């Protein structure tokens, strides 16, 4: 072959070699097929551990009961027992060390999530105690009359 044909060919080959060498350094060692399928299991293995280490925010009432036993006992004996503490108080991560006080959701709209009457036939919402937002104590906060930890009681 003539020199003017070979010159760009060597350039192309050189480029491929450079890319292959760069690839050796840039692709992590644990990148590859981890499983039985190239289509679904071609990935960086250490990423699985990275997702496992993602911080947990909602810690459940088992962690609340350590300090707030009285409130948890009241809640557990009430019709509101299936509702998690963190549904109304927000995720408890960092509490009480970094976050001294957790927010308390007192908004009327928060209670209406379950207790607004939608008049749907044969529906789970209609079986809960419900109110019509437009006629029931308009714009008042529910918690002024209903104690959320035990809705059968009035707040102190």
């Amino acid at each position, binding site marked *: 072959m003539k020199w003017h044909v070979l010159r760009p060919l060597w350039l192309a080959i050189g480029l491929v070699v450079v890319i292959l060498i760069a690839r050796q350094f840039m692709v992590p060692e644990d*990148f590859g097929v*981890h*499983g*039985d*399928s190239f*289509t*679904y*299991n*071609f*990935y*960086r293995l250490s*990423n*699985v551990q990275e*997702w*496992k*280490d*993602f*911080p*947990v*925010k*909602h810690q*459940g009432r088992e962690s609340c009961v350590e300090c707030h036993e009285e409130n948890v006992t009241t809640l557990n004996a009430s019709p509101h027992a*299936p*509702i*998690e503490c*963190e*549904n109304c108080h*927000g*995720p408890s991560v960092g509490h009480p060390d970094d976050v001294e006080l957790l927010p308390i959701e007192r908004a009327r*709209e928060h209670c*209406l*999530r*379950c207790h*607004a009457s*939608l*008049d*749907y*036939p*044969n*529906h*789970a*919402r209609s079986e*809960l105690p419900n109110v019509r*937002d437009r006629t029931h104590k308009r714009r008042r906060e529910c918690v002024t009359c209903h104690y959320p930890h035990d809705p059968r009681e009035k707040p102190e």
Partner: protein
Amino acid sequence: MSCSRRDFLKQACGGTLASVLPVSAFTFLSPEEARAAVENANVRWAFLVDTRKCVGCGLCVKACKNENEIPYDAPVTRTWVERYVITNDGQAHIDSPMGGRDGFIDNVINGEEIDPDNIAKAFFVPKLCNQCDNPPCVQVCPVGATYQTDDGVVLVDRDWCIGCGYCIMACPYGVRFFHPVHKVADKCNFCYHRITKGMNPACVESCAFDARRIANLRDPDDPVTKIITTERVAVLKDEYGTKPHVFYIGLDENVR
């Protein structure tokens, strides 16, 4: 070319054996047996949604956004709740404002007030990633940034994703979105950081009505697995062949 009878028989037998052997080698092992041999066979995560129990409070969406650091006011979410109201004329009114994050507290759907006397049936359908056995979103990833773990969950490698968006287009369920902060594709992963520690996903934890439950299909004693294997459950868009692993009780023909 000469060929003795001995040579002909030799070659015919050899050729037949050679052509039969590789085929039989494959048929001895069924795909399930092959998979069981290489996979971690102890865990396969699945999900059960009972639409009859859902009251549409939206606390699962709120908990998911807080747990997984999804910007609260951005119009993206890993899980969402759809409301279906079928009126007496057979028309379906469907909405999911902000993914149902703030619940459903009135009868207004897409700006239209629905007369309660005109409602034939109404229900809520929580949706999340189906963690498919044949995930189309993984097939299309050009860089290997999304993958299926040995326990069946599809994850996204945030360091490796280039944000091309192919997977977002490929998912038939529309569960993937572009994360506005990390600038990569994002999706529900059954709260992988929680289920691998023995905790429930945030949406399951926050559901007061047991409408959402997590199951390990490889554990025959798991009560939720028993429901999935013995009761009448359905999946979304079965015809796509993705083998979704979120099972629904009480699905309606109007649900897409």
